[in-house]
Structure formats: structure tokens, C-alpha cells
């Protein structure tokens, strides 16, 4: 088991290094020049080259990449003399656009995105898996049919529609959140109730589509597992129907759902662009969108991209370990 874990850790690390290098290669060949963009209206070649030096763009991509990786561990210093400033470790570069260390910018956006992801995740897991199990258990009854309608509606409503509908016809119409308060960050530590109410509707709009997919997936997995030979064996032993479901069916039926759930959750941690945009939440998604479409803020784009990739790789690792914990066939070779 230990060997399995260390091997998976090592391969995750290698994947992360490769991803970060790839990001640098891609942005190195993109046809826009951050040094030129940071220059403004009255631009001279001298200012551009000065910018380039200050941004650390006057060296090859792999040197930039190396500096970036190094900065994560030891911090990074930009400029010289009076204009010198330092981003302490972990440093992810400096945004000249916002005149701030990227780490500071990320630190303010991350809690928003994490709040959004965690809440939505809990909501859709309870709703989706719960409904899936119930409709599998009471298959072909009215409960099952009702949940089928939910699945149909949920999967055919994309977030940008369900989100807008919720915002316009519930939140704003009934004044559940004041338009001025929309997108205001409340820390769950100091203002938990405000935090909860400000996130509830974004959670719901994000959770709906996931919950619908998970309901369908759970239902078919539970039904499929119920027809396995080992379930028949359990019944032949005299196991009660309740225990057949909870003990014998659910673990194998839900294990594959766990894999997908982990990856979906990690994907959300990278930023739920549409939902954040609709509800004006200042999270990673909006940050990336703004940096990519309006500001061409390369340090931010690079960092959010790498961060999103890291979440996926780490989630993958956790999912693999959890699966090995659940399924002995993977654990013991």
C-alpha cells in the first residue's frame, strides 16, 4: 500500500512539473506581449524593454519557468533600487496590471471559489446520490418517474440558463439578495449566516445540473449492482433487503461515482466561470476571465491555469487512494 501511495505521489509530481512547463511554452508562443501591454499610451522601445526586464520576460521560456518554480518556494524580487519590491514565498509572479503580487490576488479569490465549490458539491452529492438511490430502490414507481423528470429537466438546463433564471426570477424578484450586495464576500468565520445566504443561490444553480447527472448515474449504477451475482448470494444468506442495499449494494455502486465526483469537484475549484459571472462572485473563474479577455494579465493567467491543473491532479490522486481503500482488488495485488 505504501509503495502504491509513493508511486502515485511521484507520478503526480511529475505530471505537475510537465503541466507547468507546458503552460510556459504555450504562453511563450502566444502572439501578445505583456511587456508591450503593460506599457500604456506613451510607449517607447526603452520602456518596453525595461518592462520586459522587470517582468522577467527577457530570458528563454525555460528560465522564466525555472524562476517561477523557484519563486513558489523562496519568493521573488522584482526591479532594483527604490523600485524594488518583493513577493514573499509562495510567489506566483507579479501583476503589473493590478500592481499586486499574484499570490495576494489569488488569496482573495480562492476563498470565494472554494466556498462556491464546497457548498455546491455537498448539495449535489446529497441531492443527486440520494435521489438516485431512492429511485433505484423504488424503481418504476411514481418516485422514480418524478426523479426521471428532474433528471431530464436538470440535464437539459445549462448553468448559464438555470443560473440566470434563479437570479432574475427568485433572487432579484423576491429581493433575497440586494443587487448592491451581490458579489459581496462574507467570510464564513466572521459572518457565517451572511456567507451562507450569499452563496445559497449560486450553490443551487451550480448543483442542479450536477445533481441531475449524478441522479441518473447513481440510479443506473445501483440497479446494475443489484443484479450482480453477489447480491443474489447475500439474499440467499438471508440478509435483509435494507442491509442488502446499504451494506452490499451501495459500496460497489458508489465507488465509480466517487471518481467522477472528485474530478468534478476539482474542476470547480479551478473556477466556475459562468456561475461566478452571473452572481458577480469575485472568484478564480472571474479572475481568469478578466485577466484573459480584458487585461491580458499573463502572470495571473499562468498561475490560475497551473492552480486549476494542480487541483485536478491532486483530486485524481485522492480519488485513486480512496478507490484503493474502497476496493480491495486494487489495494492488494
Amino acid at each position, binding site marked *: 500500500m505504501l509503495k502504491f501511495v509513493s*508511486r502515485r505521489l*511521484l*507520478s503526480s509530481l511529475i505530471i505537475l512539473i510537465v503541466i507547468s512547463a507546458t503552460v510556459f511554452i504555450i504562453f511563450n508562443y502566444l502572439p501578445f506581449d505583456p511587456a508591450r501591454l503593460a506599457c500604456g499610451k506613451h510607449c517607447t522601445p526603452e520602456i518596453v524593454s525595461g518592462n520586459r526586464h522587470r517582468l522577467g520576460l527577457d530570458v528563454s521560456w525555460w528560465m522564466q519557468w525555472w524562476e517561477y518554480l523557484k519563486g513558489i518556494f523562496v519568493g521573488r524580487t522584482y526591479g532594483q533600487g527604490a523600485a524594488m519590491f518583493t513577493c514573499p514565498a509562495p510567489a506566483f509572479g507579479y501583476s503589473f496590471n493590478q500592481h499586486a503580487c499574484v499570490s495576494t490576488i489569488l488569496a482573495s479569490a480562492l476563498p470565494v471559489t472554494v466556498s462556491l465549490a464546497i457548498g455546491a458539491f455537498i448539495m449535489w452529492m446529497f441531492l443527486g446520490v440520494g435521489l438516485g438511490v431512492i429511485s433505484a430502490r423504488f424503481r418504476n414507481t411514481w418516485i422514480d418517474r418524478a426523479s426521471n423528470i428532474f433528471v431530464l429537466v436538470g440535464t437539459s438546463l445549462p448553468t448559464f440558463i438555470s443560473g440566470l433564471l434563479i437570479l432574475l426570477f427568485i433572487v432579484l424578484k423576491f429581493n433575497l439578495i440586494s443587487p448592491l450586495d451581490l458579489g459581496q464576500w462574507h467570510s464564513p468565520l466572521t459572518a457565517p449566516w451572511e456567507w451562507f445566504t450569499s452563496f445559497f443561490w449560486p450553490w443551487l444553480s451550480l448543483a442542479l445540473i450536477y445533481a441531475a447527472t449524478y441522479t441518473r448515474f447513481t440510479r443506473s449504477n445501483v440497479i446494475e449492482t443489484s443484479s450482480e451475482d453477489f447480491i443474489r448470494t447475500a439474499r440467499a444468506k438471508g440478509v435483509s433487503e435494507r442491509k442488502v442495499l446499504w451494506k452490499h449494494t451501495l459500496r460497489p455502486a458508489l465507488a465509480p461515482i466517487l471518481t467522477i465526483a472528485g474530478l468534478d469537484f476539482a474542476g470547480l475549484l479551478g473556477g466556475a466561470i459562468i456561475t461566478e459571472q452571473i452572481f458577480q462572485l469575485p472568484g478564480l473563474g472571474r479572475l481568469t476571465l478578466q485577466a484573459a479577455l480584458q487585461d491580458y494579465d499573463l502572470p495571473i493567467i499562468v498561475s490560475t491555469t497551473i492552480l486549476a491543473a494542480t487541483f485536478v491532479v491532486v483530486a485524481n490522486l485522492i480519488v485513486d487512494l480512496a478507490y484503493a481503500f474502497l476496493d480491495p482488488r486494487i489495494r492488494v*495485488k
Partner: protein
Amino acid sequence: MNQPVLELKNLKKHFISSNGVFSRNKTTVKAVDGIDMTVNSGETVGLVGESGCGKTTVGRTVLKLYEPTSGSIIFDGEEITNFSPRQMKPVRSKLQMIFQDPYSSLNPRHTIGSIIASSYEIHGIHPEGGVKKAVQNLLDRVGLNPEHINRFPHEFSGGQRQRIGIARALALRPKLIIADEPVSALDVSIQAQVVNLLDDLQKEMGLSYLFIAHDLSVVQHISDRVIVMYLGKIMEEAKTSQLFLNPRHPYTKALLSAVPIPDPEIERNRERIVLSGDLPSPANPPSGCVFSTRCWKATEKCHQIAPPLVEISIGSKVACHFPEGN
């Protein structure tokens, strides 16, 4: 009759599996470990053994579905061991296969007519009287209604599907058919029908069969000669009557005594050898004779020296230091 269609010389097929990208541990499974055999024209050779003995791998390696590790495969006088897929194409028209599960080997979206006709298309052959006529003749020959040419595989029963598989294999008038467990998925009363069909076709078309099966009673009926494999090696090879009535290798003897005979009086009064234990893992075969760990006659010599396959009477070869019988 004595012209060899297929000759295998010291054929080996080893599977090497690694345990992961960052792992150095490699497991070598010697699925087929140096076997010699011959199938003569018009002859049926039965290849038997328990699961994991390598019999299926032999069939697939001969068809070049697996690349042989070493040794040589000579088909119809031609060495095909290192043939590329392109070179194999003309060979395949003469070397066909019938599978165990007739359903999964037939494309469910194609009519049986187009499944059989595809053999002609792939090889660019234009049969006399047209493809449709040829397909209908084949269907008729294997005992299916020629009018069912436009039906789909799922509309047929298991036995009928196996007939479709046979018709497909026969389309190009092959010399050798490798039949891998062709009747083991079928019900008893249907098995007999298919075995008889294979028999008739052989007489009529001069086919040779390599008949791979675990069911010894069916092999007894259909084969002229039988080869017994265990853990990738040949244990015994003999004419059918010789092998079944006077087995020389202890493994053959144990195998035969384990097959129940459908006759209560004989079955309950015969001596029975119940082998202890399971088949050892092919990834880690015993030293010396591979059967030595389960053999009741094994001595120190057996555990150390692997006995070669030697001819001990005419047409009968055994790989054993202490063969049974006379």
C-alpha cells in the same frame, strides 16, 4: 493424408507485463513454452488442457493474433513466423478460426449475409455465380435456411450462430480451421449437431482442424490425434484411441479419470485419481517437470530435470520420466 498443413517448431509465446510505468518489476508468463506439433492435411488434432495451460494462446499465435516470441510456424509449406500483417492477408484465406462465443464474434449490426460476404470482399474474391449465391450455398451447407440471409445475428439461437461462424470460416475454402472451444457454449443436444456438421464438412472439403477444447469427451469424438498441454508445455501426444484407452502421462491419466462418465455403474465403480491442489501460476512455474508439484509419482529427479517429449511407441510421445502403462 500425411502432408503437414501446419508445423510448429519449438514455438514460444511469453507475455511480459510490467507493474506500472515507474516499476521495474516485470512478470513473464510463459504461456506457450517451446512446443512442437504437426497438423496433417485432412486431420483433426485435439489440443486439450485446463484453463491457463496455453492452448488458446497456441491457436492465437498460429493465427498471428499474437507475435510469437521464438520458434517457427510453418503453414502449408511456408514459414509464416515473421510475416507482417500485409503478408498474412493471403495466408488468412487458407487459415480460418471459429470462436467459442458465436455471438460476440458476429457484428450485431450486420446481416448474416453481409457478415459471410465480407470474407469475399476482404480478399477480393469473386465466387462463381455471384456472392449472394455463394453465401446462400454456404448457409444451406451448414444447415441454415438460405432465405435467412438478411437476418441479424440476434435473431438466431446459440447453435445457429455457431453455424454462421462456421459458414464464415468456410467461405474462402480454407485448408486449416482453428476451432477454439467451438461447442462449449452450446447445450448438449446442440453440441452434437455442430460436432457432426464439423465432421461432415471435413470429409467433404478435406479440411484440417486444430480443435482446442477443455471437454475431453468431445475431443475424443472428433479428433484423430490428441495433444495434452499443461502450463505451456506438451505432456503427451498420441492417437486418440491410444491416448484415451492407454494414457501414458500421469497428468493425462488424472485428467481422464476426473471426467465423469455418463454411466452410473461405471462411474461409481472406477478408480479415480483426484489431484490435489490447483494449477500453479504460469508466471511462476515449478522447476523441473511442470506437473511435478501435483504428481503422485514425482521424485527428486522430476523436481529438478524437465523431461523431454520423446516418442515411446509409434505415434505416441510423452514428456515424463516415469510413464504409465506399457
